[in-house]
């Protein structure tokens, strides 16, 4: 079996692509960084990959609402390919803007057949873009493939629209993969531990299969020990917390 192949999509305004590519390389995958136009114009095929990643950024400027325009573009122009990708047992990861895109395309919490939405990611309660590090805990009830074996994480967020809002009954216990917590792991902690006012402190959501995952925090920004904001106090660890998410992803894909 050959190496796992990861496709990192970029679109106008994508800006976390390079470090996301680096993270997947560190996790042992081959990575292609491909402009969305190349997929739409059929110069690249989704079929050739096991992992699809929508990285962070401000696609199309986050004009109208964060991720909205790319979400429509993916759904209308690549929706069938993406559905087949998921049905083939492959993996989709959306980080920050990528999560906003997955939510607004109707790919989370489950693939929406008619494009109606149950979930959105909207303006932070503070009304501000904020960049800060947050404590996270993994929901053990979740089927999420990406967070297997992980208990707690410390990662940065950087967004203005990260508040998860859901229509009632839209989420099951399985769908919630990640919670914001305080430093002791309390999942009812409030701002700034919950940086955006997300309902139920939800930081990341996956579908029933556990193979489509979106999260607001940036695991690709904590791969090396010196990315930790207090490494000069605490010493630099060999790897950052974020790396395990990418390793989990690649490990799973190896068995496809």
């Amino acid at each position: 079996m050959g190496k796992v192949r990861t496709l990192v999509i970029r679109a106008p305004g994508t800006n976390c692509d390079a470090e996301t590519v680096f993270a997947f390389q560190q996790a042992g995958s081959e990575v292609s960084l491909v402009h969305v136009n190349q997929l739409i114009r059929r110069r690249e095929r989704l079929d050739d990959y096991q992992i699809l990643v929508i990285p962070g950024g401000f696609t199309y400027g986050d004009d109208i609402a964060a991720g909205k325009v790319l979400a429509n573009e993916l759904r209308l122009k690549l929706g069938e390919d993406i559905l087949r990708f998921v049905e083939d047992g492959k993996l989709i990861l959306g980080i920050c803007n990528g999560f906003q895109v997955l939510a607004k395309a109707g790919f989370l919490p489950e693939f929406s057949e008619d494009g109606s939405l149950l979930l959105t990611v909207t303006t932070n309660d503070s009304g501000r873009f904020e960049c800060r590090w947050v404590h996270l805990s993994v929901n053990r009830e979740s089927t999420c493939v990406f967070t297997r074996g992980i208990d707690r994480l410390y990662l940065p967020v950087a967004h203005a629209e990260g508040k998860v809002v859901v229509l009632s009954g839209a989420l099951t216990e399985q769908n919630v993969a990640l919670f914001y917590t305080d430093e002791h792991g309390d999942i009812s902690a409030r701002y700034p531990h919950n940086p955006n006012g997300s309902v139920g402190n939800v930081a990341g959501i996956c579908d029933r299969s556990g193979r489509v995952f979106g999260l607001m925090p940036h695991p690709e920004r904590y791969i090396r020990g010196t990315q930790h904001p207090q490494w000069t106090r605490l010493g630099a660890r060999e790897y950052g917390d974020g790396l395990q998410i990418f390793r989990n992803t690649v490990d799973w894909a190896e068995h496809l």
Partner: protein
Amino acid sequence: MQRIEVRLKSHLPDARGLGLVKDIRDLGITTVSMVRVIDIYWLDSELADDDLDLVCRRLLADPVTQEYNHQSAFSSEVELSAGNHSVEVAFNAGVSDPVEDTIMKAIRDLGISSVREVRTAKRYLLEGQLDEDQLEVICSRLLVNPIIQHVVKTEQFSFPENPQYRFALNRVSILGLDNDQASSVRQQYGFDDDEFKAIIEYFRAQERDPTDVEMETLAQAWSEHCVHKTFKGKVTLDGAVINNLLRSTIVRATKELDKPWCISVFEDNAGVIDFDGNWALCFKVETHNHPSAVEPYGGAATGVGGVVRDPLGTGLGAKPILNTDVFCFGPPDMPYEKVPRGVLHPRRIFKGVRAGVADYGNRLGIPTLNGAILFDRRYVANPLVFCGTLALMPNEYGRIRRQNPGDLVVVIGGRTGRDGVHGVTFASEQLTEQSSSVSYSSVQIGNPIVEKKVIDVLLQARDRQLYRRITDCGGGGLSSAVGEMAAETGVRVYLDKVPLKYSGLSYSEIWVSESQERMLLAVPPENIEELVNIFGSEDVEAAVIGEFTGDRRLKLFYQDNPVADLSMEFLHEGRPQLQRQALWQPPQYDEPDFDTPADLGEALLDVLSSWNVCSKEWVIRQYDHEVQGASVLKPLVGKDNDGPGDAAIIRPLLGSEMGVIVANGINHKYGDIDPYWMAVSVIDEALRQIIAVGGNLDRVALLDNFSWGNTDRPDMMAALVRALQACYDMAVVYQTPFISGKDSLYNEFEFEGEIISIPHTLLVSAIGVMADVNRAVSMDLKNDGDLIYIVGTTLNELGGSEYFSAHGFTGNGVPRVDPQRARRLMVNLSRATAEGLVSACHDCSEGGIGVAVAEMAFAGGLGATINLGAVPLGEPVDRDDFILFSESNSRFLVTVMPERQGEFEEIMAGSVLAVIGRVDGSEVLTVYGLGGNRVVNTPLAELKKAWQEPLRW
């Protein structure tokens, strides 16, 4: 025309509205309990209802959180009930919201192609009792900036029509004018007498009058902004003549130092130095002052956009990896009645500039990791906005290139509109009360995503070597970019080939437009097809607008009509050198006459909570400082991630251990006493920060940014000369070459017959190469029991200090530097950090030892005790407060574990230092005075609160 309203469902909190409620309360109006914001979209279309529904449901409104209405306005209960108010705000004609282009694309994605145009607006519903005056205050101070916006009545809205342009050649009559007529033409284009004479002579020899576009070209090329004529001028000071200020100071230092790692200095859009033998660093900082004064958000945003294009347009183009931004504003608490008419309140300028810088930088995905914000009432009408970008490129692309005759002139990126027509001459003129109403065409709203697209695709074209040369389109637009690039060759440009945003632009407007997000390439004809294709693959326009020639002439055409024909020699060398007189008279200030306060704890709290010293976390958190994943030392450090770091460190290549340190030095108060020592001090400060975080002086490059008043005045000119001389003196001793720089002059404002000039302001920005980022040191105290050292000599130097300023004094004892000793000290300290002997280090700057030790303690969450009697003094100082708050340069507070004391002192041998205290397990900062008495005994929580509160907005 169709109108759509989108609003949040009523049970959800409106974060934008809540922010406005707070802002309204800041205006002293307490009756507004709620504000809700409705987004309005005007479509120039005749869509059927089901298509309109599709656009709303799938695109404009979020079905989970929002509701829409395209039949009528929301006849909201809030609006209709008595005492509530609705204000609708739209952009002025000619101002386009970048969102509109995105909406057009997204509507086409939905399969609807019949929408011709989209305009956006906002409606504010204010709940609460307001009289008309109060509503007017809210509109004018918060909701509407008349430069770009106006209040509309729903029925008034119309799509502006763009007239068609019909060509007619305009000549400007300058030959055979009488004095009055000549003077009026001269002033219209902003030439001085000598310049205008040279122009008349040139055209007399041509036996014709110039065309308007020729005059515009000369006005741009000879403007202060483009050619820096003051810095290249001939200055007489004390009978001595300095020919070309820049060459005889800053550039001279770089030449004398002749560092082999300098790749490109003072010849391109940014400076370039070698990083690791394979990669090069490219660095530039510049100002965007005048536009930010008039429209803070748009002005500052385009400041970021502009400076990012500098490294992109250096060599063959560098990838931006870090932004650094420094602002100077009037005090945020300035009473409204003290703010000159025609000027926005400092708080609004601050908020707008911050938002503009953050929105543009965040969207480009460039981390903003370092900066500073200073306040002084003299910045009220002339805020300073310094934007800087560090970029990375392969070494072999670093040097400036030359195009060949026959290469094509290609403009890429954004389209050209009427934006910023005359922006350059605007930047070089003083602002007046009328500026706000007459200068609207100088303001643009940038579109960062267009620039991001340009960056992404340009670097691919670079790596395929598809173009031979590149420059940015900045101030002066195509006129400057093409004119400068073609100086050695000559060029023919067909102005009707330039892609336009809308019809109606004259050939002259096309030529001088300063529309953002454009770059200029010289492309060999054989590569043009591949180049256009690669840009097209990512939806970036690339248009051939002319070709470079070998005749050294600038020839412009519009629809086959020649409209300009100038010799490059005259355009670039025909300007008579500027002559200026300088006269230096040192000012004298009162020395303070207050007694040493009994409780220096209170004094410390005052200094910590001053605008200049207090925490800037509110600003920093709204920048993305983590994007690109390269940060090693972030702007906020310490136990709770909220202490003030010195310099920032990034790891530009994620797989390498090498780093770049970025630091800034700025202090306008010293300049009030002596600009020479101000320049010395800010260079020292920038270098101190590099040393404090674990760097060294082996490979440090500097940038200068001078923001000054009116240098036509001999005293201003003399101040400038002194600062420039200091730059030379320091650079050669520290062996840190300047690699690029910028200046912004004439920063003064006329108000009620009085001239308000900004303080002399020099920003020195430094980058240092770090061999191993794992040696980085942060400023927070770390271990109970660590020894606290002061490194460096303390003198009675409180002139221009924060402490004196808090007491209403300037004083005269400005901090000085002995550069030879300072360099030795910095070299020693950098060896100590490289050996891992230093657990924390913070440089002493504003607020001296007092502020430095307090910041270290609360950042680390560890108390400390220090003894002022142990501080090594360079002269007798008998006051505790003076020792605690002296701002003497070249000093550091350093902590060392007791078991490493011997090693540390050995490495530091030959430099002045002393143990002045210890980190302890308490939660208090204690300071003992010269008499052995306790002069400060303040809980860390109280210190931190004082420091954090002022800007916790």
